[in-house]
């Protein structure tokens, strides 16, 4: 029972990271109809930026984290201004290749820094354990879950009560009508990319204490696609729920199924979801309700 709870917590924690990346993916997709295949790279760059500021420049961890996330938001906005907006209105393939190419440039850029390609990094507090009676939970897992809940709350407030949030929502519901109502659609696209990049950076920071910071940590974003599709592809809460669901399913599979099957679980689930709910899971739920 105890071990089950521990497996579940670690599954939820990793699922939160999947969910955050899926959230950034869905946010960008909803606002700009662009599929981003560089979320993993943005995640990796964000984590490395924090490490560079923390261990390289000697800044305190919280400041390094804040600056890294803000820097990634800026990077997202700049990329949107100079390249990504060309993909709007084009076939999906254009955005897929464009974001993939930009992602390769980012990854190659980080690889070119000798310190990044030789070492793996951990942020402090990774090994602490939270003891509740007989239950031992990894502090980093609890931290990831708490941070995700807080972040989801902040995002909900942003989308519900701020002008920019409302405008962004209007823009993703119907860009044409939004433009007629005076919403600056082009700057909303920039905002969506900035938010998407910042969310990926946060996911990278949260992932850092669970795994390590290394060049291939961005591969985790591949699990964000199943999470987003399971969540219905255009639903922001759905993306988070899909991520957590995947994380838990994966951990349970690791407990029950033979070695190595665990990593395939998200993709098998994705194939099944596409087979059974061809309009997306969210539509399936809606129909049933």
């Amino acid at each position, binding site marked *: 029972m105890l071990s089950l709870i521990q497996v579940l917590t670690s599954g939820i924690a990793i699922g939160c990271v999947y969910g955050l990346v899926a959230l950034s993916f869905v946010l960008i997709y909803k606002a700009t109809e662009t*599929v981003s295949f560089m979320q993993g790279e943005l995640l990796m760059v964000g984590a490395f930026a924090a490490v560079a500021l923390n261990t390289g420049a000697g800044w305190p961890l919280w400041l390094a984290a804040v600056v890294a996330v803000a820097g990634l938001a800026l990077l997202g906005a700049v990329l949107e201004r100079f390249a990504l907006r060309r993909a709007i209105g084009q076939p999906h393939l254009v955005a897929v290749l*464009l974001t993939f190419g930009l992602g390769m440039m980012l990854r190659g*850029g980080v690889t070119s820094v000798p310190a990044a390609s030789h070492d793996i990094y951990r942020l402090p507090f990774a090994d602490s354990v939270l003891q509740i009676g007989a239950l031992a939970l990894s502090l980093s897992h609890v931290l990831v879950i708490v941070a995700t809940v807080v972040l989801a709350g902040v995002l909900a407030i942003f989308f519900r009560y701020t002008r920019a949030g409302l405008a962004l929502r209007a823009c993703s519901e119907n860009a044409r009508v939004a433009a007629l109502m005076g919403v600056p659609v082009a700057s909303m696209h920039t905002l969506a990319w900035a938010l998407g990049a910042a969310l990926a950076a946060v996911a990278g920071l949260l992932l850092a204490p669970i795994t390590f910071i290394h060049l291939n940590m961005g591969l985790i974003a591949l699990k964000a*696609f199943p999470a987003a599709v399971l969540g219905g592809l255009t639903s922001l809460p759905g993306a988070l729920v899909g991520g957590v669901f995947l994380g838990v399913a994966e951990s349970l599979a690791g407990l029950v199924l033979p070695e190595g*099957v665990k990593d395939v679980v998200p993709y098998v689930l994705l194939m099944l979801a596409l087979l059974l709910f*061809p309009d997306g899971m969210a539509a399936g739920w809606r129909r049933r309700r």
Partner: protein
Amino acid sequence: MLRPLLLIAVILALGLSVLGADYAAGQATLVATYAIAGLGLVIIVGQAGQITLGQGALVALGAYAETLLAMRGVPPVLSVPAAVALGAAGGALASLPARRLGGLYFAMSTLAFALIVEEMLVRWTSLTRGGAGLSVPTLAWGGMRVDTPLAQMLVSLAALMLAWLACRRLLAGRSGRAWRAVREDEIAAAEACGIDVAATKLRAFVLGGALAGLAGALYAHWIGFISPEQFGLMFSFELLMLVFIGGARHLSGALWGALVIVSLPQLIALLRDVLPGEWSRSAGLETVLFGAVIVAMVLLRPQGLASASGGAQASVRKGTED
């Protein structure tokens, strides 16, 4: 059809004089093999208008099928069709979950399929020896052994010609028209023309998979060693980039794209020699340049090379046959 062949001949002659016959033949072999896989993508992406991120995995299925059969002494008359059939079956399977949907869902289901196949090749060690890889026997039938670069080139070019002719026939006929109708407007295709959209897409994926299987079988023989990481997601993207660079609307796009993709690493290696000190040694340079080429292509020449070379007008004249 004539122009790219002429170009290949020119490049071959150049290659022969500069790099030596064997090297040039080896490169031409690779170009032809990549172009066969690229033809499959021209059908799926350029004609039927669907995205696939799993073409690399279908090539892998062909390569492993051919290798495992050839290792057991099965002659190529049986093993190559088996590889082609496995590729086609894979294509059908990958597209199945998203049959009724378009665009992004196809991308997702083919992505999932590719990752499942890759994981399977790594984990099923009793059959594939996992990451350790398999060494592939020479392509041989009866007393004939294809073991010189020249022979390999001839076999590949012959296979490319056959595949090309088959695709050209299909594109000129009923299937081609159905694919293009689905590409332009699915709903109109279904309601006004009575086209079975799902079956049409499925056909594109089956044909694309078959071509990928053929390319995989040949690739395995020429390279002589296969392991799962050769066929990862990166390879699928490379192939996607191939048709995008070449121009997905024309069969000749596969050839142009293959030329660029095969020569790109060589060009980057050349550039490495020219660039000054610190930069040329860095491990990330190749990735950055490769990414930069993709981005530049997408931004500067979104129609691809094939249409830039007068292919567009030609295809208007002849109907979109090539």
